[in-house]
């Protein structure tokens, strides 16, 4: 009985992240538009976009290979799995022990590897621009993310996300310098990984300013729909990760009753909205950086995360 309940909860989590992510993207877009004194698209527009794209015919380049056609499904599957394993309204999901935070990051890295290959597949310059810049950003953002994981894992005593979230929610955690440094670094890495301003512009159509958009330039129809959905899922994943590690209040524990569930769910929606709002404000006040200023920016995240880990190694009270 308990097993069926756990299965149902894990399934509910998977469905929840899938359904909420376009709403989150729509919310961020609407808020950005309003901040720029525009009306902006309706909140549910991303859903309509996805359905419209799914129904369209795919136009494939002449020399696109089978890899090009398989990659959107792989990217979607990998991102969906990673997003389902991050605690949202409840920690201790059924399959949370199958992948800890390092494995989740590596699954996202596989998705990025596949997307970079897709950029190279058609054999035009645009895909090459996107892929080469994406791997440069990844070569700095991924070590930064791993060092953040180290810093937080050394405080929480585990790399299992449920255990980490539970520890962060308990009174033993205290205000630590390493956590502050890790938070700043995680925000920078989240911006870099989700292709947001100042790292990349998700709304641009100029090749020279694209990173993510250039890699997926040749995709159309249902393939493009899956890739956009994966991008939305990734944004949801990162905001949920920041929320469950650094703002875990309201997260219900595995042995909780229905009241705690609802509190957890409501808290989660509030956190998502807050995260989306902060992202929209941040994207509006700052300009996109030149590509070769990015290594300095993301390198700063790597340095902060390295400092956080170093402090943890040096003394237990940092």
């Amino acid at each position, binding site marked *: 009985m308990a097993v069926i309940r756990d299965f149902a909860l894990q399934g509910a989590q998977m469905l929840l992240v899938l359904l909420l992510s376009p709403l989150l993207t729509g919310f961020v877009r609407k808020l950005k538009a309003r901040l720029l004194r525009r009306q902006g698209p309706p909140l549910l527009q991303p859903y309509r976009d996805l359905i419209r794209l799914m129904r369209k015919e795919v136009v494939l380049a002449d020399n696109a290979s089978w890899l090009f056609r398989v990659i959107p499904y792989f990217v979607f599957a990998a991102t969906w799995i990673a997003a389902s394993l991050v605690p949202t309204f409840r920690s201790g999901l059924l399959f949370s022990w199958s992948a800890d935070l390092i494995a989740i990051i590596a699954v996202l890295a596989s998705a990025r590897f596949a997307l970079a290959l897709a950029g190279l597949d058609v054999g035009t310059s645009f895909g090459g621009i996107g892929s080469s810049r994406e791997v440069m950003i990844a070569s700095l953002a991924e070590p930064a993310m791993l060092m953040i994981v180290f810093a937080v894992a050394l405080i929480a005593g585990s790399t299992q996300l449920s255990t980490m979230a539970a520890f962060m929610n308990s009174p033993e955690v205290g205000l630590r310098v390493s956590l502050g*440094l890790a938070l700043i670094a995680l925000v920078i890495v989240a911006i870099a990984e989700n292709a947001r301003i100042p790292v990349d512009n998700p709304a641009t159509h100029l090749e020279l300013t694209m990173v993510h958009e250039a890699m997926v330039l040749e995709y159309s129809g249902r393939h493009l729909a899956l890739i956009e959905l994966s991008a939305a899922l990734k944004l949801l994943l990162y905001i949920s990760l920041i929320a469950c590690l650094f703002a875990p209040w309201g997260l219900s524990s595995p042995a909780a009753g229905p009241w705690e569930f609802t509190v957890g769910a409501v808290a989660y929606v509030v956190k998502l909205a807050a995260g989306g709002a902060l992202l929209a404000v941040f994207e509006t006040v700052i300009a996109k950086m030149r590509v070769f200023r990015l*290594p300095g920016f993301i390198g*700063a995240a790597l*340095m902060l995360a390295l*400092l956080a880990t170093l402090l943890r190694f*040096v*003394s237990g*009270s*940092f």
Partner: protein
Amino acid sequence: MPALVFDIAHLLAGSLVVMSFVQLYQDRLSALINVFAVHALVLALSVAWQAFAQGAPHLYITAAIALVFKAIIIPVALRRIMVRLGIHREIEVVVGVGPAMLLGIGLVALAMVVMLRVTAEADPLAREDLAFALSVVLLGLLMMVTRRNAVSQVIGFMSLENGLVLAATGAKGMPLVVEISVAFSVLIAFIVIGIFLFRIRERFDTVDMQALDKFRGERR
């Protein structure tokens, strides 16, 4: 409750170190002055918290001095110097941002090792705050060494003094007289440097230290 006090003190001291790193990262002069103002603000908050934690009300005055002089008056003065001298440019660096940050991390590690080994039997709060303070001092020195623009060297010197103030408050009981005299001597040094900058600028039309070396008549 004491654990929370401990943690907040640590957090503020750590934020001071982070602000030093942010100073190292800047490459525009006006942004650097703003970051220095925030640096002094964090110092003021840290000293005020130490006053609350140790129950030493004279440290509140130190915090007020830091706030008024270092966070308000000196940045405003620096900005006016910047405008009068006409140096709105970027800061020329001797060592790039990446290597400078790496060196900074190495210096922080060095400061940690030295402080935590040397003061093995002292009070843990004081020890770790001293370690952070030494880091800020070393990072201030690093800034002075790796920047060619004179104004940025002045800011490095100021942030070094901030680190000294942090160390002194952390060590439980810096007499007010010492603090006031230190603050005044820094202020006077600052005024003298400012006067010199104007004279140098009048004579040589630049405050770039490397360019000034050519006028010394010696080859490096």
